């Protein structure tokens, strides 16, 4: 498994952004305090921003805005993933999204090379699958100027994975070069998985995209911890995924603007075999954001 993984690490995670529980360090805590309120994630309206809440004695972080477009079959877990990553309650039953719904979440991070702090502002553009088919304007509006496209499949729905291939061939013909990420949902039901790890590897090999595995459910104990207002529990829970996502976005940006040199293509597909994956020293069963 480790061999496979090292072969397909696109970029060593943690090279550019501090992963290792930065949010638990005293410095990280100060920054994370600006996106929390009573131990829960603070919700920001269109007119608000966490910058005013960063204590004045700290270095004011630069806001990095990203638009992320979500693509995937109906019921695959797009809206639930957004709710999870934004620190909101994940609905227990499937709710069909009636149009475009965009959600903003902020995530502070520290850049390793410069030591500078940045505040990532991720705007997720989520649109219901049924409504996209009925109205033509929805999908273009989501794709317009999106820096990243997140493709969703569900581990317990084989057809959602099959759909990915067609969607990939469609999107890659576009001229703009957004970051592509594949997200596999319902990983908690791994024993019912209809997709083998070999297939995932092959897919990754073919399209050169990172695949994140998510479970949008909480164990009862974790729910209790959240309700008890333990400020770190929820952040702890999503930190691996969020850090991975923002690091990929940042690297993609840097590559596009030529600040980071990659050997050949503009995509994040340099496979440096000698480097081991930073996530490999963690327990891969516990980690939601490991790579195949």
């Amino acid at each position, binding site marked *: 498994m480790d061999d496979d993984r090292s072969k397909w690490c696109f970029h060593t995670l943690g090279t550019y952004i501090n992963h290792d529980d930065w949010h638990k360090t005293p410095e990280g805590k100060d920054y994370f305090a600006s996106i929390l309120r009573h131990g829960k994630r603070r919700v*920001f*309206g*269109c*007119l608000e921003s966490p910058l005013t809440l960063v204590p004045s004695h700290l270095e004011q972080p630069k806001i990095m805005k990203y638009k992320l477009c979500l693509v995937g079959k109906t019921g695959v877990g797009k809206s639930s993933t957004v709710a999870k990553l*934004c620190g909101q309650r994940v609905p227990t039953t499937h709710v*069909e999204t*009636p*149009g475009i*719904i965009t959600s903003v979440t902020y995530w502070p991070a520290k850049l390793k090379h410069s030591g500078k702090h940045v505040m990532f502002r991720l705007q997720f553009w989520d649109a219901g699958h049924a409504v996209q088919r*009925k109205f033509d304007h929805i999908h273009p509006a989501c794709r317009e100027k999106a820096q990243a496209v997140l493709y969703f499949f569900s581990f317990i729905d084989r057809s959602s994975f099959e759909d990915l291939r067609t969607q990939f061939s469609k999107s890659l013909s576009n001229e703009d070069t957004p970051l592509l990420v594949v997200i596999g949902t319902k990983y908690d039901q791994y024993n019912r998985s209809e997709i083998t790890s070999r297939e995932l590897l092959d897919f990754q090999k073919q399209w050169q995209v990172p695949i994140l595995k998510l479970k949008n459910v909480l164990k009862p104990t974790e729910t209790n911890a959240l309700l008890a207002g333990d400020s770190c529990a929820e952040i702890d829970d999503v930190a691996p995924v969020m850090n991975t996502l923002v690091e990929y976005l940042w690297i993609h940006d840097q590559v596009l603007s030529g600040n980071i040199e990659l050997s050949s293509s503009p995509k994040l597909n340099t496979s440096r075999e000698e480097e081991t994956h930073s996530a490999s020293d963690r327990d891969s069963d516990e980690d939601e954001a490991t790579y195949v």
Partner: protein
Amino acid sequence: MAVHLVCLTNEGGVPLFTRTKGDVKSLAFAEQGMLYGVQMFAQNHGVKLESTTTEEAKVIWQVFHDSVTLVLVTSNDGSCDIHYKTLINHIFHAMVMFIGLETLVSIRTVEKLRREIKVCYPVIDTLLQDTDLYGALSSSVDVLVSAENTTLQEPLEAFVTSAESTFGCLHADGKLVVATSNWWALSGQEMMLVAKFIQSLPIGTSSDVPIYLPHASPKDPHRLLSIHLQPGVVVSVLCYANPTLAEAEEQLIEPAWRLHHEALRAIQRAPSSNIPRTIPLDAGILGYVLLNTDQHKCLSSVRLPLIAGGAAELKPLPPYARREILTAFYRTVVGGLFPPSLSPERQDSSGEAYKCLPHSAEETYMCGDDFKTYALNSGGFQFFVLFSSAVPQYAMRSVTKNLLGTLSKEKIFVDRRTKSS
């Protein structure tokens, strides 16, 4: 109180969806078929089956446009059928709002309709739930009275104009705060359904959703842009192709609303009484519902704070009990004594009890073990007040009249509708 809702095609009785409220299993396929069969049997014999009562429950049938049959099974509280029919009517129009009248009238493929109809569930479920808001019950939109009602009119107009529209409004916590004159000209049901939808959106989001106005444009969709300015405070505008959601968010919000942070924050923190703290309330009042039947506005609260030393403090009723009593009182009085406030489009069969009265009732009251209620019907307003049982009977009339006098003069009840349409 358990509720079952079954939606079937009128031709063939194919189930489209079912919803339930409360901790109950949804009806079995055979039960759904039976409910449909009874109605179909009547229909084939030239009889329109409207409702029936069992020992505990009430069943209401309604066929819309000879295409969709809705069946509502709910516990019988003894109130007029009009309230059940209002609910079933709201449910159908919520379906129209999301998928359009044409799709519902001429059903091509049932499978496709079943998939499309799923977008209606959140609003339909809200309609079935008990809420602190009385808009759905009274076919009107819930409003909020605050000092900012006038301050926020100007930025709203500016924003709506910049979005090349004349339909726009601002909601706080599911209640309408300000709206353009064209918005106020919509029917009470439309304003209420849009408010319910906006309330169902995840907090902090911006959205661009195609909606059909059930009465104003049931066949042509518009785009409803709704943007959370602050958590719980949402500005909405109804438009055609332009502007895009991204344009509205990035270019139009800032100029219109930048200078109004404080006013927005004030309505976000509006008191649970839904009226400004400057309006004096009698200490014996636990809750109220005020309807403007002509403009289809509803102002209500069941969360009035208990005033220390006041009469209500002796036997405090929790908010859910206040809500239940006020709802029951409203359902008994309206239809029974007072005329219901309905959308003009609605053509229901007559036979409501209030029509049999020799004169029109203007006031009524009711006393229970732990509460007293008083209702007034005067000058386009219907006012229902819940008192603590400690308040003496003789005081209720004057207290109710005084409060109505004060509240009815509030800016929110100024008629802002454009008359031309």
